[in-house]
């Protein structure tokens, strides 16, 4: 009798405590979860682990000596440089474009939105080729550039340009829906209170978009450091000069220098992980700011 009561009670409480969205049988839930985890493990965790395992195959000594090599260091410097230029450039562009699109109506607005999406739509290789066609030796401005002793293609400027091109939708795309949802009433209110454009931007607009902005910057940075296709076309693969980290990984791998290749790859992966942690942190802070 007592046992019967306690079973019904516990049954009852467990139902009340755990509100489930679905009522699928246990085996369905377990199977789906297992499939998802296996997939993640095979396609994400395992390769990532493999990168670090391969990089450390000959021990820490070999791993760190791979970074002591001047070409590897140069590639890290170049990647950081390209990101350091293209991310701020796209930050400025993205904020300006999102501001225009969200707060004003003008002819050609939909064309501008489509153009912003262009780098997402075309293959990165095409993006690189565009720059070769424009700035290359046989390109439109090629002769003029040679006359003035300026090198764009197969040099650092080309890499920065290509990186900027493929990453420019990130900030704008993040901000446009956010700013459209917020409308411009707060800016207009600040205007009637006597604020000038600069004050409105810094004191009303930026605080409202800061989390979206940070998120866009992080995504933009991740892509800037990892870009391969477009940069590969304009780089020319000059060792120690125009090889970014992804290109350096490819070269080392093709030369059967697996430890070196995976060491550089692991550095790149670490940068990506740091970026992801930052992104998660920003999302968490944003959710907290929303909730309060």
């Amino acid at each position, binding site marked *: 009798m007592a046992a019967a009561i306690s079973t019904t009670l516990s049954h009852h409480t467990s139902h009340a405590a755990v509100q489930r969205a679905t009522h699928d049988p246990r085996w369905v839930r377990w199977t789906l979860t297992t499939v998802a985890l296996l997939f993640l493990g095979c396609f994400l965790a395992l390769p990532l682990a493999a990168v670090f395992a391969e990089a450390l195959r000959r021990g820490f000594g070999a791993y760190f000596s791979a970074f002591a090599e001047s070409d590897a260091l140069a590639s890290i410097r170049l990647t950081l440089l390209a990101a350091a230029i293209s991310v701020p450039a796209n930050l400025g562009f993205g904020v300006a474009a999102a501001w225009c699109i969200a707060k004003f109506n003008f002819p050609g607005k939909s064309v501008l939105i489509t153009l912003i999406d262009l780098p997402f739509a075309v293959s990165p290789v095409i993006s690189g080729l565009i720059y070769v066609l424009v700035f290359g030796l046989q390109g439109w401005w090629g002769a003029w550039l040679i006359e003035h002793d300026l090198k764009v293609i197969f040099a650092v400027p080309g890499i920065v340009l290509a990186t900027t091109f493929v990453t420019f939708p990130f900030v704008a795309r993040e901000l446009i829906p956010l700013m459209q949802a917020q409308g411009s009433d707060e800016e*207009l*209110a*600040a205007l009637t*209170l*006597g604020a000038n454009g600069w*004050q409105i931007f810094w004191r009303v607009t930026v605080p409202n978009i800061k989390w979206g902005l940070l998120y866009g910057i992080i995504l933009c940075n991740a892509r800037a450091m990892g870009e391969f296709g477009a940069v590969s076309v304009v780089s020319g693969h000059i060792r120690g000069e125009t090889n970014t980290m992804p290109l350096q990984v490819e070269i080392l791998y093709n030369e059967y220098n697996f430890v070196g290749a995976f060491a550089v790859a692991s550095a790149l992966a670490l940068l990506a992980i740091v970026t992801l942690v930052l992104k998660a942190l920003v999302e968490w802070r944003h959710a907290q700011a929303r909730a309060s």
Partner: protein
Amino acid sequence: MSIQATNIRKTFGTVTVLGGVDLTVPRGKLVALLGPSGSGKTTLLRIIAGLEHADPGSGQIHFHGEDVTKVPAGKRKVGFVFQHYALFRHMTVFENIAFGLTILPRRDRPAGSAIADRVHALLKLVQLEGLDARYPTQLSGGQRQRVALARALAVEPRVLLLDEPFGALDAKVRKELRRWLRKFHDEIHLTTVFVTHDQEEALEIADEVVVMNNARIEQVGTPQEVYDRPASPFVYQFLGNVNVLRAQALAGAGVPGANPAALEAEGNLYVRPHDVAVAPHDPRSPGLVAVLRYIHAAGPQARLTLEQIQSRATVEVEVSRSELATLGLKVGDLATLRLRQGRSFDADYAI
């Protein structure tokens, strides 16, 4: 005159939003811009504030005699309260109200303590003391609206403009707040214009009502003037209920007190439901004969719907509950209707 707008024209593409509007707002008055949506009232308010601009070459805006047509919104010294308040969501109530003062150039900016005193005085004025550390999301609709009002008043505006100030509130809060706004206006005496589509709101609190329709001003007057003597069929229909009766039908029925010549004219007669007298049918007394179809008595007044037996057109009548009881009318009974007063716009007469 506190606000003077002359010949304001505004077109968006091929749509005329304002067709040469003139508006004069006397000093210290509370004026309602009343009209259905799309009548141009909000656009007119935004043009007065400088948030939008009238078509090039059209009209001027004067504040207290000074031409502000070319003065940008930020320098016009208007207090503008937006329909959805537009409070700065990342700032506290205190920071919101202080905003207009903290952005002043350093030489004009009051000291921090003076700003704080000012904000607290305003909070007291709008009865929100103690809420200065809250964020807008932590306030009710009525509280947000009063914060928006305090924020607008902090910069000592020359005129106060409110866009649908009660539009986003529920019915009960709306009633409370509009009475509060009237009292508040009597305390501060700042020239105020508010936009509304709710005739009850406009008639209850405004000193003067400006009725707008189709990009034009139809009539300007005190609430009683526009209600009792509407200048156009539109105003008649927009402000309260009205029966539109065919003048010819009335002529045949021999309605007493009517000018027979005028009643023969083609056209309509506008009669308020409370200006129709209803009595049990008596063949000897003149009037419109109608059948009582429906009695709606939930409220202080009883609303009767009658159908004229000749034209089959319906007539709405309002009588007090006690009058209805004395009449002893039931649904289906015949009744005789007589008109106390009404108005026609086709022929220039009134009965």
